[in-house]
């Protein structure tokens, strides 16, 4: 009986695991191997083994160093902002009020909407091509920002704003689910025990929502580190400011240097693993709780 159950379990898991092995494990292994070669679709034959050369080239490249700093700043800054706005959403929506369902939908829409097209709306908002009194103000703002902080600063700000707009919508809804999952009595007790809303927030709400906050931070940081789509879409593929994702895209798809590009995108892995370990350390990991 027990034996059969194990067999059934593996049979049920087989399709999912097989497909994931083909489209996930194999590509990752391929990428690790390719990063050690000089493979390129522009050249004939399979690439030559070059050891750690690609990594040496990538890490020594000042452009990469700049991209790495920008990527990390981007991930951390947007995560912090998303979390702040998301918590705001969740707290505002936690109590019932007339019209809550409509506000709820308005809050969720940015995330539900395809990023590649809502980005067009943002592009239009931030760099309006139509001559209006409004577009003059935005144009001057762009020049002021780029002038003080260097070229690309405005683009960086735009992408961050877009990412925050989209991400905080998800985090807000997610944390709201977290608040709803906590028994209401706990919050009511806290209301009686302490006078200050600020203290209540840090001493009661935050600890209760810890697993949710951890997962939200984790998802936000990892997508931030590996962001390619948002940056690509808002800058229409031009590298106004470099992040690792767009650099890898240009190298691989436009430049045809698969080996170098693989090494470049694999440099993200230590960052991703670092975030994973840190969060599993600080917070109760959702997965370990179950096991």
């Amino acid at each position, binding site marked *: 009986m027990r034996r059969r159950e194990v067999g059934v*379990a593996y049979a049920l898991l087989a399709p999912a695991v097989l*497909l994931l092995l083909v489209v996930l494990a194999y590509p990752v292994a391929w990428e690790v191997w390719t990063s050690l070669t000089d493979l390129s679709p522009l050249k004939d034959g399979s690439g030559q083994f070059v050891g750690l050369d690609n990594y040496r080239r990538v890490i020594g490249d000042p452009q990469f160093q700049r991209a790495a700093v920008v990527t990390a700043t981007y991930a951390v800054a947007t995560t912090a902002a998303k979390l702040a706005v998301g918590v705001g959403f969740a707290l505002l929506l936690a109590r019932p009020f007339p019209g809550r369902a409509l506000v709820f939908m308005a809050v969720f829409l940015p995330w*539900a909407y*395809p990023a590649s097209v809502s980005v067009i709306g943002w592009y239009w908002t931030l760099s309006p*091509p139509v*001559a209006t009194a409004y577009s003059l103000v935005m144009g001057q703002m762009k020049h002021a920002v780029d002038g003080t902080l260097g070229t690309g600063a405005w683009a960086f700000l735009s992408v961050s704003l877009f990412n925050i707009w989209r991400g905080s919508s998800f985090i807000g809804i*997610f944390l709201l689910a977290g608040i709803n*999952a906590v028994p209401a009595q706990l919050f009511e007790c806290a209301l009686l025990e302490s006078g200050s809303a600020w203290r209540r927030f840090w001493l009661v709400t935050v600890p209760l929502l810890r697993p949710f906050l951890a997962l939200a931070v984790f998802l936000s940081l990892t997508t931030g580190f*590996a962001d390619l789509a948002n940056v690509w879409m808002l800058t229409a593929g031009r590298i106004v400011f470099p992040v690792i994702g767009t650099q890898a895209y240009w190298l691989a798809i436009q430049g045809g240097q698969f080996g170098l590009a693989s090494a470049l995108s694999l440099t993200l892995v230590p960052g991703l693993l670092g975030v994973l370990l840190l969060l599993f350390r600080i917070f109760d990991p959702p997965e370990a709780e*179950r096991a």
Partner: protein
Amino acid sequence: MVEQTWKKWIYFYIPLTVFVIGTLFPFYWMLITAIRPDEELYRSWRAVNNAPFWTLHPTLSHVQDLLAKTSFPRWLWNTFFIAVVSTTISLACGLLAGYALARLNFPLAGFLGTSIFVTYLVPPTLLFIPLADIIRNFRLGNTPWALILTYPTFLIPFCTWLLMGYFKTIPKELEECARIDGATRFGAMARIIFPIAVPGILSAGIFAFTLSWNEFIYALVFLSSPERKTVPVGVVSELIRGDIYFWGQLMAGALLGSVPVALVYSFFVEYYVAGLTGSVKG
């Protein structure tokens, strides 16, 4: 009492209004641009428009152009087809795997569960290079199959994760009763558990569908001819030529292709959230 309402405005209504305006403004902006006539869109920089936030001459010509003069209807169909097939594959795999992980005791259960969770987090930024090479080797480039086979990389972990959480909320006793009454494991699974899990399956399906509808990177890398593209990529790449933006059509496309999906999404969000919290709490 007077002080109370004053406080409520500061802490509640004003922030709420700011948030809602912030989230909805880009959508409003798209709508206005989509119905703005060309004479207002393309004008010299000196002729300042005094009505930047609305238009006095709404027109549907951009929508007509979009449907008649571009491949937009084609993109809609491509996106729909790819989303339906990849969702079906992923849902079937996720259903079986989620059931096994939630219900059956076997060595490696914890390990496989965690691995599937981790694969969900492998970003497309890491995967698109090797996948591009695989697609090239199998000569699948520029066909819908390139996307149908790659979308499960994020859809299967997602469906499995969501459905596993859902299956765990269904009491084991229901199944045990069925087994005692003579049903086989598969019988109990197909006739008792899956029907109860319909809301969970439905929400996993809808979200998988929208995730593939909205996907951008793989569609950008793997498809090249204009009539093969999906809505998110087609709108951005075909209606922007160099620095020329077909603004009206662009905005109309942005609205038409996505509003229905976004609305469906919003209606089912409660299910989705329930699924997420289920899997967080274990």
